[in-house]
């Protein structure tokens, strides 16, 4: 298990000759075994932050360390993985094989079978184990992508708007499943979304990113499953909405 400490992070991109700042002077810490959601408009730097944490991008300045309560584990031991916006399944592999891909380092085929079997069972995918991605609905495919990440058994799970393309009903169910996974498996989860409701339903803590900076950091002291009709929920929702929507739109100052 691991938490994340980010200190004075900067990230710039070069786009058609112009430099644009994706993240500036961002400091935040994510506690071990906590569920943090990040909201913001398109272009506020949420995706960039996740890509930096899982080392798909390199940071221009600042530091990022993974903290752990186990002193024997070093940074290199920390396993970080991400569920992308799209399922990104390998079209040539079946559901089961796609999930087993996360266990490529495991030599014992029986152990791979068991671990994948557990994941299939937990996500209700057993009937689809032999199906190919093109035969799955969007919700099923995203579930497989989540299963693949769970099979990898990371300390930190990053999620980049994974339910953004799903219908409201499927999304609701997957949110509930994700909360159940968080409660049973005790992972650190950083979940990015542009949906304020989703951020509040899932997170123990919600961060608002605005133009590459941290605009708000609020704890959500409501027990799971959260009562979305409660006054506390409504008050937080209003606060988040106001913060996200205040000021100039992010996509106007920063293309892409």
């Amino acid at each position, binding site marked *: 298990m691991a938490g994340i400490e980010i200190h004075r992070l900067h990230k710039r991109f070069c786009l058609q000759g112009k430099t644009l700042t994706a993240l500036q002077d961002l400091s935040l810490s994510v506690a071990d075994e906590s569920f943090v959601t990040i909201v913001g408009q398109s272009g506020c730097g949420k995706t960039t932050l996740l890509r930096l944490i*899982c*080392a*798909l991008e390199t940071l221009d300045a600042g530091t990022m360390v993974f903290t752990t309560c186990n002193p024997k584990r070093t940074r290199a031991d920390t*396993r*970080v*993985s*991400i569920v*992308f916006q*799209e399922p*990104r399944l*390998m*079209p*040539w*592999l079946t559901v089961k094989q796609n999930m087993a*891909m*996360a266990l*490529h*380092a495991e030599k014992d085929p029986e152990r791979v079978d068991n671990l994948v079997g557990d994941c299939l069972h937990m996500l209700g995918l057993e009937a689809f184990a032999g199906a*190919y991605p*093109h035969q799955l609905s969007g919700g099923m495919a995203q579930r497989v992508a989540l299963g*693949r990440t769970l099979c*990898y058994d990371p300390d930190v799970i990053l999620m980049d708007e994974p339910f953004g393309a799903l219908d409201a009903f499927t999304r609701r169910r997957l949110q509930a499943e994700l909360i159940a996974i968080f409660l049973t498996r005790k992972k650190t989860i950083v979940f990015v979304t542009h949906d304020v409701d989703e951020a509040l339903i899932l997170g123990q803590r919600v961060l608002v990113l605005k133009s590459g900076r941290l605009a708000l950091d609020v704890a959500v002291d409501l027990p799971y499953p959260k009562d979305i009709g409660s006054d506390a929920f409504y008050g937080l929702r209003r606060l988040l909405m106001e913060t996200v929507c205040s000021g100039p739109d992010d996509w106007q100052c920063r293309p892409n």
Partner: protein
Amino acid sequence: MAVFFIKSTAVFWLVLAVWTCGSLLGLFNTYLLPPPWKVAAGAMKLAGDGTLLRHSLVSLARVLAGFAATVLIGLPLGIWVGLNHSTRTVLKAPLDFCRHIPPLALTPLLILWFGIGETSKLLVIMLAAFFPVFLNTVGGVANCDPRLIEVGQVLNLGRYGRIRRIILPAALPSIVVGLRLGLGFSWRSLIGAELLAAAAGLGYMIIEAEQFSRPDIVMVGIVVIGGLGLALDAVFGAATRRLLPWYRGTADGWH
């Protein structure tokens, strides 16, 4: 199934009907276009004494040997070039130069250098099949969806693992298209090479029939060449569907 058979062979029946009616009505000069029954009789005779089988087997053996050699060279080379962007930059212009030279144009030189034996015919096949195999492999490898490669990165796959588990399987449909095109190209160019210099093979059979003024045998040769090409492609297609069950792409032969 019956409907499929009728639909997929309808054009052949139509051509045969027009050809038969035209010949019966005496619309065609029988020397320029021999009637179908004469061609059929010629085919029966050639099939009966084993000539047709012998020429077909010689041609098929040549094409399979040449094609296998091309795959052994073109596939690894294509993977290597596809993975290395800088090699692509260096090799693009020279390869484009070579790609536009039809193998048949090189036949005089090949005969001069290697004689009229099997070597020059194998080289013609290899030259014809190389570019479709090579270029489709390069394209398939180089155009692998970077988003899938990122999945490999976050699952902590090394470079070799990413190539083996993501890039190559992703390139497979494109490679299959290249192999299929290459097989067709080598079949056509082989017949061309046999027209120029050979002592056996379907191309040789045609050129010999021309010298003996036997247009019916020329027609038999043409029909057999087309038919065998069709059969090769069908075998290849069936193998593809078996080996790549998830793949339902454009390898159905429309290029």
